[in-house]
């Protein structure tokens, strides 16, 4: 579904990603693991068009998207839940959700999506007229995911959804990703929380200093943790 080939990208004249290649098949949950500064967020920013690669290509369902602006990539069905949730401050929960469906002009369709979202996240319906920033951390993460789902994507990218959440809530978020996959969504998850990510993912890439160090089945990596740890810490395994 998503194919990344020899992607090199960065800011200004500094490359952060070096020759990254990875792929995500339809219906998979793929995790990209790595420490701070490994280039995970830069990878996601490049995939959604906030950043254009210097070299290499990104293809979604066979079509090149690496020169497209963010709104076109969203239109094709790829949505990102950004790091740190980034709820729109000053907008109510409902307005945050409506912004998620910004590209959909039909009111009736938007309302239908809202009621679907409320079924999955009842707390958002309760608080729909509250300002987004007044929600708790866990609720804000739900809102951030819900906002991305409002565009009805076929592929969801998440940048460290576990960041700053209590362990119980992390578990809930990971369970949610499993549910979304059941409903036909493909998921690319970027995480520092290795254990939780390994529980939910089918396949895993480990990044360090802007390159892919390891690629493998989550089940295999769960078994042989040593190799993973060494790569994770930036050493070449």
């Amino acid at each position, binding site marked *: 579904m998503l194919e990344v080939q020899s992607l090199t990208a960065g800011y200004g004249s500094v490359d952060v990603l070096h020759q990254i290649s990875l792929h995500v098949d339809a219906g998979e949950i793929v995790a990209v693991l790595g420490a701070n500064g490994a280039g995970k967020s830069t990878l996601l920013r490049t995939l959604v068009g906030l950043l254009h690669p210097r070299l290499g290509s990104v293809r979604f369902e066979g079509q090149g998207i690496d020169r497209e602006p963010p709104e076109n990539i969203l239109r094709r069905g790829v949505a990102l839940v950004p790091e740190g949730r980034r709820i729109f401050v000053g907008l109510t929960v409902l307005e945050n959700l409506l912004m998620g469906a910004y*590209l959909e002009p039909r009111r009736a369709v938007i309302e239908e999506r809202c009621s679907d979202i409320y079924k999955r996240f009842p707390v958002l319906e309760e608080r729909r007229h509250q300002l987004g920033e007044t929600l708790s951390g866990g609720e804000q993460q739900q809102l951030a995911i819900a906002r991305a789902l409002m565009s009805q994507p076929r592929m969801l990218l998440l940048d460290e959804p576990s960041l700053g959440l209590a362990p119980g809530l992390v578990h809930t978020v990971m369970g949610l990703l499993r549910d979304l996959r059941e409903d036909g969504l493909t998921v690319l998850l970027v995480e520092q929380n290795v254990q939780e990510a390994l529980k939910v993912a089918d396949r895993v890439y480990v990044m360090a200093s802007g390159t892919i160090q390891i690629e493998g089945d989550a089940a295999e990596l769960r078994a042989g943790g040593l190799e993973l740890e060494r790569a994770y810490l930036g050493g070449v395994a």
Partner: protein
Amino acid sequence: MTVELIVQQVINALSRGSLYALLALGLAMVYSVLGLMNFAYGELVTVTGYTMWFLMVRGISFPVAAVIGIVAATVVSLLTELTAFHPLRRASFAAILFSSFAVSVIIQNLIRQLISPRPRGIRIPAALDEVVRLGPFYIGVLSLVTFALSLAVMILLVAFLQRSRWGIALRAAAADFEVARLVGVRANRIIALSFVISGLLAGIGGVLWVSRIGGMTPSMGLTPVLRSFIAVVIGGLGTLRGAVVGGFVLAFLEVALHVLLPSWARPFIDALSLVVVVVILYISPEGLIRKEVEA
């Protein structure tokens, strides 16, 4: 001091404050979305004034000239974005700021060259100069019109920002420009929209401004942009509510100084109000309204 005088001055300050608030909103609108303090904003008031003068000396009536003047300010605001700011999207903050100064200088000198460096005047409808009596108070019609019109425009703006799809998108872009792009808002369109609204507000404010002073000079934009800038800074950079609060605070300050100071000290009112602004910022460096709590 009599109660009548105080009420009279409060009305005066409300009228002036509503105009400052209206003008400051236009400056804050672009700042909140693009992070640019557009110092060519005052020239939009100038463009409104000269457009009205150009039409009125050719026999066009005041109301029609005013509407076309507002349209002219809006068009010039959008053109400024397209020619002076859009090409510099990836440039440094300083480069964009200097570009706004350049636009300001270019518009002023175009007017000096094409029209005249000397002042021009227009005939304000006599009705605006009249004074109505409300009980014991005498109120200028222009003050009433200024207050009512500014208030109406601000209410319309709030309704637009709260209810419409584009309005919500503008607020979202002001809160987090990058995430707004992630949900599909086109960066250039939303920036253009902020310049259009900014131009509209400068145009409407410009008509009221010109009606107050009855004439125009090429450099007349300095006072409104400076007042707006001070209002935006007092209120808290980048929040629209802050711009409104700042506009009223500044106006009340000016009127209070005008009333309280002896006549020999009145030339220093501008300096003194700036001193008070400095004191406000010393006590509350982020302005009176903080961005986090804006609704």
